[in-house]
């Protein structure tokens, strides 16, 4: 009997925490801060600036633009890949700017803003492994972050490979460098940076073909239409004013190690 009592209380609590709350946009303005969930460990999207010790990056800039527009202060909250969606759903953050790729399953849980980045999800391998094509990863181990779309993408696109998931980028990456797994699947940009860092000690190469391509959006709780409209307005304005281009160049452009060109526009994610 006791067990059922405990379960009932648990269910009741879970139900209570998911009940609808007041308009979030109003809440944020009243509070005067926008709480933005971000990873903090994914250069160049969100990472700690070694000089200032602040978390900076492309994702962070997106959040700060939203905060500026609403006229509130920005508060960053670092979180793990795995915890980000539950944290948003439970209302501990207002918005997610956390390398959040669009998937159909996630879109049933949370809303996405317009996409502000389009990511090529690739696999990095050691040069000495001699792996050059995704097919060669069949029967091998590929690491990814726990709860990431890459982990699911590898299982979907290379079903013969075994995925091993880790809590953070550094563990998943170290596992490749130390030969515990054969590849690491993540956003190309993250991989480019890591390859650069490991250039001398352990040469790595990135498999040319993408495992999959995914649009990234800011995550917003379901049903917060007013807030979502505002966020989308900010993003669209960034695109038309050319500021979005500027931000892209700042973090990924020719002056950076990535030397990328922007080949997408900010727009609604087509599921």
């Amino acid at each position: 009997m006791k067990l059922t009592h405990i379960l009932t209380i648990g269910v009741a609590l879970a139900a209570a925490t998911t009940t609808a709350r007041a308009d979030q946009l109003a809440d944020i303005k009243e509070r005067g801060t926008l709480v933005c969930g971000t990873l903090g460990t994914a250069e160049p999207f969100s990472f700690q600036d070694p000089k200032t010790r602040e978390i900076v990056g492309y994702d962070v800039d997106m959040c700060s633009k939203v905060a500026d527009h609403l006229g509130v202060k920005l508060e960053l909250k670092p979180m793990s890949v795995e915890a980000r969606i539950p944290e948003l759903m439970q209302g501990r953050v207002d918005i997610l700017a956390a390398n959040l790729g669009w998937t159909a399953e996630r879109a049933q849980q949370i809303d996405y803003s317009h996409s502000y980045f389009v990511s090529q999800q690739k696999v990095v391998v050691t040069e000495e492994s001699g792996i050059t094509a995704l097919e060669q990863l069949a029967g091998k181990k590929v690491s990814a972050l726990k709860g990431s779309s890459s982990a699911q993408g590898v299982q979907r696109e290379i079903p013969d490979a075994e995925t091993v998931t880790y809590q953070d980028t550094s563990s998943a990456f170290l596992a490749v460098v130390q030969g515990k797994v054969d590849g690491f699947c993540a956003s190309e940009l993250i991989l480019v940076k890591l390859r650069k860092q490991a250039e001398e000690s352990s040469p790595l190469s990135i498999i040319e073909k993408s495992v999959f391509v995914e649009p990234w959006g800011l995550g917003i709780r379901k049903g917060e239409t007013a807030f979502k409209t505002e966020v989308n307005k900010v993003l669209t304005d960034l695109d038309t004013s050319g500021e979005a281009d500027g931000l892209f160049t700042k973090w990924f452009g020719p002056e950076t190690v990535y030397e990328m060109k922007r080949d997408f526009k900010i727009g609604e994610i087509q599921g």
Partner: protein
Amino acid sequence: MGYVFDPAAVLSGQYLDWFLWGIATTIALTAAAWLVGMTTGIILTLVRMVPFRPCEWLVVGYVEYHRNVPLLVQIFLWYFGIPELLPDVLRDWINSHNSEFVLATIALGLANGAYVTEDLRSGIQSIPKTQYEAARSIGFNYMQAMGWVILPQAFRIVIPPLVNQTLLLFKNTSLAMAIGVGELTYRTREVDSYTFKTFEAFAVATIVYLGISFAIMAIGNIADRKLKLEIR
């Protein structure tokens, strides 16, 4: 918006398979680490009894390291640190032989060994010294006194604390998910990140953990009762 509790959503198709793999891995990891832990614990206890001071210091150092460094750190050290010190051939061999599981077993087992040896020591110390003296006075040598008088009683006394350590070890296997061992917690989180049925997924895991814990306790109780000396 009410919450619909729907355990079937996480207990069907591939999710059920994941749970079952997870449970199997958790049990295998517990069993393997338990064997490592018991063996280490017994060896350390024997080393400690050697009447040569540095032997005792060695065991004390071992116990203090494993008790005072967080287990997760020890696991990371075994997984990311120790293999790098090995020769390439050996390292590649480990990496191609389920290194996550093996290294997690070693880390968990060795840490458990530290607690086991402490329990064994306290068990031996709880036997009055007069019994040892009595055994010696009727002509037993040191080994005989230990083997026939002290250890049989000490082992019975330490069964309850050892069951306790086994339970802790069993629950600590969940830390192995940090290095990618596909045990129950790892699989639960995987199911969670696919289905977003957090409450259901963890409810299943909780019930399984509780069930296995109760089983361990029951086995411990039976062993305790079967081996208990009848008081005449």
